[in-house]
């Protein structure tokens, strides 16, 4: 019984939140890693692309709500998502046309592209603020819970409750669907194969008649889609605040590097690794231990690190990977 209680506490406070957060990070890291693989630079504007996409989705959601359209038990944002992706993709393609293409043609050093992405980040940040402001918004509607604490207690008779919020379940389902679609696209379609070929060896791909501009355009569209989906899911799960999307850049980069920059499978693994470490390190374990070892009376909360330092966790993971395996766990692009 105590073991069951401990398991319920673990699932409720560690596993489910970390899984949802991990899926959001993985989607974000996939975008970063794809851009890295094809365009060969770390895109600092990715966090703000997520923020911009989410802001568009929120505005569309408000519009739909005003029209009285809803998705029943699901959040209205899901209906707004496709148009949000399209608009974000347009903006991102615009930045490629206006900014990145010039440096690509010049074959500029990657760090110049990184710097240009910082400029793009500034502009996108300003656009997001202009669109929606700097305040915090919650935009999840529809059913709140799939299982709430009381129902779970009545069902099982356990003193500990378990809640599964619909946004968490939705995050996982959407993330899995998106990932399946992405891998199907990369491995089975002609365009996806062209992208992988271009990522592996640019010159060889050019020789085989692959149109580089088309590959780049596809990459930006996919990255914009992933960013908007990740940002919307993150915003539904927690809340939307533009600055949080700048801060989430670090865990996303950590996830992409841990998995190996340029390696999509690695980005997914990295996302979950970072998320689970972050939640596990900042969670106060005292209740779990209380059930498992009732004879042991810990002095404190048994929290390894305060939640305000959650970014330190991704940073430490990043440092460890850089020290011992700079190409990442799944052997990404060269150092």
């Amino acid at each position, binding site marked *: 019984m105590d073991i069951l209680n401990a398991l319920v506490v673990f699932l409720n406070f560690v596993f489910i939140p970390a899984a949802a957060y991990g899926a959001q990070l993985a989607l974000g890291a996939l975008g970063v890693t794809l851009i890295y693989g094809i365009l060969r630079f*770390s895109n600092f504007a990715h966090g703000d692309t997520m923020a911009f996409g989410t802001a568009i989705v929120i505005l569309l959601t408000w519009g739909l709500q005003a029209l009285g359209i809803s998705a029943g038990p699901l959040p209205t944002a899901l209906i707004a998502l496709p148009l949000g992706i399209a608009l974000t993709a347009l903006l991102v393609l615009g930045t490629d046309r206006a900014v990145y293409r010039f440096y690509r043609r010049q074959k500029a050093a990657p*760090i110049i592209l990184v710097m240009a992405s910082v400029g793009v980040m*500034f502009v996108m940040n300003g656009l997001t603020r202009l669109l929606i402001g700097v305040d915090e918004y919650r935009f999840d509607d529809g059913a709140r819970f799939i299982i709430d604490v009381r129902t779970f207690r009545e069902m099982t008779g356990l003193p500990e409750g378990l809640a599964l919020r619909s946004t968490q379940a939705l995050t996982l389902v959407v993330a899995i669907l998106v990932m399946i679609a992405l891998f199907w696209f990369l491995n089975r379609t002609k365009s996806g194969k062209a992208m992988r070929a271009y990522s592996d060896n640019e010159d060889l791909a050019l020789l085989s008649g692959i149109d580089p501009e088309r590959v780049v355009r596809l990459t930006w569209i996919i990255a914009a889609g992933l960013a908007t989906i990740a940002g919307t899911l993150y915003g539904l799960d927690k809340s939307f605040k533009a600055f949080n999307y700048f801060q989430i850049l*670090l865990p996303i980069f950590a996830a992409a590097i841990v998995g190996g920059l340029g390696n999509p499978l690695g980005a997914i693994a990295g996302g979950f690794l970072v998320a689970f470490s972050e939640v596990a390190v900042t969670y106060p374990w005292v209740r779990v231990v209380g059930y498992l070892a009732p004879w042991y009376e810990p002095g404190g909360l048994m929290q390894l690190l305060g939640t305000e330092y959650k970014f330190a966790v991704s940073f430490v993971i*990043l440092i460890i990977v850089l020290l011992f395996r700079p190409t990442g766990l799944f052997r990404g692009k060269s150092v």
Partner: protein
Amino acid sequence: MATNRQATASSSRWRAPILFAILAILFVLEGTVRNSMFSGSWNTSLAILNMGLLSAITALGVNMQWGYAGLFNVGVVGFLAMGALAPVLVALPPVEGAWAAGGPRLLLALAVGLGTLALAKLAWTRTRSGIIVVIVLIAGFVTYRWLFDPAVIAIEGNNPARHGNIGGLGMPVLLSWVVGGVFAAAAAWGIGKVALGLRSDYLAIATLGIGEIIVAVLRNEDWLARGVKNITSIPRPVASEVALQRNPDFVDFAARWGFPAAEASGIWVKLSYMSLFLVVLLVIILLAELALKSPWGRMMRAIRDNETAAEAMGKDVTRRHLQVFILGSAVIGVAGAMMVTLDGLLAPTSYNPLRYTFLIWVMVIVGGSGNNWGAVLGAVTIWFLWIKAEVWGPALIALLTGPLPDSAFKAHLLDSAPHMRFIAMGLVLLLVLRFAPRGLLPEK
């Protein structure tokens, strides 16, 4: 960094003096002319200039890293914050009872923490056994927390309404500027050791991380600098306004110049700060210019322009990068300590990366990367524009939206004028990077 660097033509000899003169005229206008564009107050003008000078010192540090070595530091805000800690720990008077409450234990805890890392490194180089390293780390972490937590609780419990922090050493505030540089250099050493020698993007990402973490530490470790409760009344290196207003000689002096005492005291204080800052700025520029013209500087530029060739000539590229990264960060740390001294206040919540990292980058790129005077010019100009955009932006939008009928849309546009600054700065960065990559004052 442009790829081709030729000697500057003689026509551009006057470029720097002219641009600096234009900048000076802007500040004089701000100080004298009162209309919708300028405030006409010397206090405002000098306040902008002082912060501009501090931005210039920060920009010099960034310019050393980027202009001399091509290192992209995205954690400027963290190194500034690291330097900001120095006046608090050095210049503030000691807090009564704080040291007795847990000072030695705290120091011991920090020593154990650092010792653990060193021991783990030793264990790894000697044995190459991951298990031993993990055991060392876990044992070290447990000991550290066992020492650290009670000490922190004791210190934070010591008169928490007024203090609750460890306090300073009561030493001169000017000394803390140097200490600030040392603090930032130490942080830079740690991060550079790990991230340099790998892909150039990795340093950017690692510095982004360390920047956020240093600011988080400042915000949450109340024992260190009272966290979000802020540290006020940091000792000042110059006379205070109130003391000046009470001094009859000064009041006479002000009256002779035709200023009321209150306004004159503000101007006097700002001028004193300005002279201090100018001295530091000029010393740093002098040292930087001497270094650039020395064999060391030629080597740095050779490494930046072609790493492979320099490496083939037997230069240890990673080591040189580490060196210049530490030097640049130390300059940023000095600027951080000076900012806190100018404000007399350490407010951790104000350390925003957009303002303290990326704005500094815009300054360096606009000024001309690789050119120290360019960094100064860019910093003061961009800072002036950044501050004035607060006034000019809404005015411009009001002008543009004037013909529109009053509506929610117009109100929204007027409200969001402050956000235009970010768009404007991003555009400036992108445009300069693309169309004038050598900046206002190109490298010679």
